[in-house]
């Protein structure tokens, strides 16, 4: 039987599977879905559910400037800080620390944090 992945080191994807401005959704068992982004060779993770509606940000679009756009009302967030950039989104998203090791992207699901308003 395989071991449960550790939440502090949750394997999200392989670096080779993502290109610039890609976003994927991961669904860790029992936790809220998380969106993982590739931006200019770096990886970032935030909550996947838009703070305004019930949309999945992984279904939205990421631009080169690090802005993810919710597919519903086109509210936007900064994927690096989680900050809500445009109305009607005002609440920030939780961001999660990410490390890359040997071509695997790991998300620390235990240390999600909200940027201070």
């Amino acid at each position: 039987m395989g071991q449960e992945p550790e939440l502090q080191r949750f394997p999200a994807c392989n670096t080779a599977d993502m290109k610039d401005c890609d976003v994927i959704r991961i669904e860790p068992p029992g936790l809220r879905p998380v969106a993982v982004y590739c931006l200019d060779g770096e990886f970032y993770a935030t909550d996947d559910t838009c703070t305004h509606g019930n949309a999945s940000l992984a279904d939205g679009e990421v631009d080169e400037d690090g802005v993810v756009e919710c597919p519903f009302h086109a509210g936007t967030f900064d994927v690096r800080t989680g900050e809500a950039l445009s109305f009607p989104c005002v609440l920030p998203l939780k961001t999660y620390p990410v490390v890359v090791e040997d071509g695997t992207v790991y998300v620390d699901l235990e240390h999600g944090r909200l940027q201070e308003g």
Partner: protein
Amino acid sequence: MPLIEIENTGERFQQNDIDDCILRAGLASGLGLSYECNSGGCGSCKFELLEGEVETLWADAPGLSARDIKKNRRLACQSRALTDLRIKMHTAPEFCLPVLAKRQSLSLLERRAVTDDIAEFRFQVDNEAVFLPGQYALLHVPGVDSPRAYSMSNLPNQNGEWAFWIRRVANGAATTVLFDQLRRGDRLILDGPYGMAYLRPDSPRDVVCIAGGSGISPMLSIARAAASDPAMAGRRLDFFFGGRRPADLCGQLELAELSRGPGALVTYHCSISDPDVGSGWSGERGFIHELVQRQLGGQLSNRECYLAGPPPMVQATQRALLLDEGVSQDQVHFDRFF
């Protein structure tokens, strides 16, 4: 007549000759196309054109950002189909019109000054005035190319009366005609009602109404409805009005009349924001959302909140309610007056 298909949902509707844009054609067919202002300002009605040709009614509408234009998006409230279309657009049941909009001809009954720059306009139609308190209608003002949105200040009624509190905008195309040229008996076309920021009488919570400037119009309607509904007896309604100067303050008299109603108990609060107003003013100062927080901070998450006014005022208030006060998004109902 062009047929429009929403690719991501499979929904279809027809744009009839009477429909002036895709958005209103879709809403009139009972679909929940995403929208807020109907005026090109908010960007909620963005869509992607996949196939077909449209005519753009207002190319410089501020509801589209540079990012949207780069991505070839358009506004459904500023586009008319010229051929059959395939589009990609967000739809949801919350946007379906609770009362189907229709066009009707109104005549001006009375214009009454409320402050230096706000007047109450009362119009008459031949049949019942059907809308929900808090909604708005589009007025096609003679000589003005595109309709303007105005929120009803009165209650739905059998007499066919539609009332609006309208603020004169310096050199504004529509308000100049409404204030200076329209005479008693003159007619214009009303298309409505529209809008999602209507009173939820079924919510068990106490209510807060927060109005900036002409945002008072729909808030009056909501307060009137809540105060006259016996089902809302025992509920509190705190009414906040923000103006720039003392001369802008209004609504006290109308709200005082509500104190004898069988429904919610209404309390009026106001604040002025212009720091240059002298010591003659002894009341509250500052932006209206600041007064809301001073008076009700810590209790707002148990309130149903209704907001209307200029976009910066609504946005600042929304931030205060959601970020500082932890009010849940679905308890906040707003219209931004673009």
